[in-house]
């Protein structure tokens, strides 16, 4: 008699991860803050005029790279409704769209910044915070909990400070902070992730921007599901920001919102913010199953992706 092999599987023991539709590149055409809005529509038009040629260059470069020139490129635009609330979607969105159209730019997707903190009941920022794996300074052997300052994240070892000293023991003098991956000299970065007061926690702009990048790279899951799906625009825009979906699809013919890579065209004033974003992103541990999914898809298309997330993100910084 031959031995019998029994196969047994249990649904709860297996893990399923939804996959996101993916473009080749997601181009961020701009980021609107209260001060930009207050400066009037001309400021916006000026910004779009500067962005347009870069967006076109990126589009052309992907067309050249993909067989048959069938590059999937989507564009997006982020409006800050988290740190300050101004105007209403019904008033503001048409103005933005009009300014873009004047510069021959199509905005495919419009997103609200507060969605990066919480979208459709899912606390995205918390999901990402839980996935931070701190960059260990030399000498970190696992025997002690990682050194953290609540609400902060850095790329090295902070200057030691006071702390408990034993009686009749010697106290330590000042020592400089150090970057872990330094090449002789350090560029030490310490990023505030959030602060809190009586109303609760407020996430910092770089932290939300890091969540934003991860969303655009299609790398966030909640219980294996995609936490945010773009919602097609209705006939009109609501009078309240909370009624606007997290991500609105403005262009019905648009390529998918998430993409293998991202490009952000930004003013140089965002340079420090993006350094902070990269400091955060280089310490986010994305679900290995999700990474594998994306790598398999891109590999199947003959488009190898860099292993490291931060290498999938590009910028163009424009002077004032």
């Amino acid at each position, binding site marked *: 008699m031959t031995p019998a*092999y029994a196969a*047994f599987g*249990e649904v*709860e*023991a*297996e*893990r399923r991860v939804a996959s996101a539709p993916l473009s080749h590149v997601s181009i961020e055409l701009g980021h609107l803050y209260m001060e930009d809005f207050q400066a009037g529509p001309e400021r916006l038009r000026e910004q779009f005029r500067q962005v347009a040629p870069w967006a076109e260059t990126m589009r052309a470069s992907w067309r050249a790279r993909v067989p048959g020139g069938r590059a999937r490129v989507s564009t997006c635009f982020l409006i800050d409704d988290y740190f300050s609330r101004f105007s209403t979607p019904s008033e503001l969105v048409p103005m933005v769209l009009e300014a873009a159209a004047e510069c021959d730019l199509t905005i495919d997707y419009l997103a609200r910044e507060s969605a990066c903190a919480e979208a459709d009941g*899912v*606390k995205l920022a*918390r*999901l990402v915070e*839980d*996935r931070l*794996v*701190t*960059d*260990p*300074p*030399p*000498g*970190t*052997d*696992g*025997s*002690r*909990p*990682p050194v953290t300052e609540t609400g902060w994240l850095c*790329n090295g070892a902070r200057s030691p400070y006071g702390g408990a000293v034993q009686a009749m023991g010697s106290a330590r003098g000042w020592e400089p902070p150090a970057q*872990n*991956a330094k*090449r002789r000299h350090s560029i030490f970065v310490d990023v505030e992730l959030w602060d809190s007061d009586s109303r609760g926690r407020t996430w910092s702009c770089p932290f939300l921007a890091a969540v934003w990048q991860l969303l655009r790279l299609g790398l*966030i*899951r*909640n*219980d*294996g599901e995609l*936490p945010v799906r773009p919602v097609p625009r209705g006939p009109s825009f609501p009078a309240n920001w909370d009624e606007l979906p997290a991500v609105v699809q403005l262009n019905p013919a648009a390529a998918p919102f998430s993409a293998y890579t991202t490009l952000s065209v930004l003013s140089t004033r965002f340079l420090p913010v993006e350094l902070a974003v990269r400091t955060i*992103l*280089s*310490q*986010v*541990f994305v*679900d*290995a199953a999700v*990474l594998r999914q994306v790598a398999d898809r891109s590999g199947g298309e003959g488009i190898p992706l860099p*292993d*490291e*997330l*931060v*290498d999938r993100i590009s910028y163009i910084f424009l002077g004032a």
Partner: protein
Amino acid sequence: MLVMGEVRTGLLQNSGEIPESLCQGVLGLLSGERVRTSRRPIVYAVSPDQLTGVDCRLASASRARVRGVGTVLSRASVTGGRVLQGSSHIQVARAESDHRLSWSHYLARPGVIEVFGKVRVPDLADGFADSGGWNDCLDLGSVGERFMDVVQASPLLDRKAPFRSARTRLRWVAVAEEPGREGPGIRFTLGRDRVRTLRLVLPDGFTPDVVDFCEDLALHDWLLTTLLVIVERARVGTATRAEVTAKLAPAVDHLLHLWMPAARLDDDFAPLWEALERRPGFTRQWQSLVARVRDQVAINTLALLREAGGW
């Protein structure tokens, strides 16, 4: 190939076993990630994988200074709603650069530690296996144990454990079979202070099932160790029957039904378990202890019946 890990095992700090429904809350160490459970042949729940960054010396038998950078992969699990384990492991790889790279490089390789310079597998394997007393060297046990602490501190547990017990430590090293070196095999050593070491030579290289196997072995070693202590403390033959039975009761209530070696393991590991069953003979010893416990309880029951005038 060189994979090293440590499993720490202890009693979940709750009065009774926890139901499967509570496992999600107790082991949900990562928001947005489900705790995976399986019910047959015993309820088993495991937390999502956790990563911890390290940059430190690796213990080596020759005391050479070996520096490694990378991430440790850890998870916590609860078996039978009763036994908690914290498990961590890493794979050793040679670094391609001679200096430390940006952290994103290491994060893209979860569970891998890159060592600067040549990797001398036997040196590192021997070093890790007896790295107990070493300071400032990679400490996988503490990493896993912190996740155990998080679980034990869960407000869902009542902290009223039915008996006291020490956590055990199983340190394991797995290397690939190589021509000219020792063949596939397993070596299990009982050390001092509840430290055990396990050395595996694997014919087919590393798979995640190796971790399952080590955790399963650690679980059963803990069960055996714990039952031995309970039986020893019961002072069979010296203390009164009632005292003996009272001391043995927690074992009957909480431990005896948990023995299920190799229950969830891949068939490839069956020969390894079989080897351990021959020597040291885990199940033999367990069954003999269980028989002793049951006999004591039975004798006491008979005595009570007789006193009560039953016969």
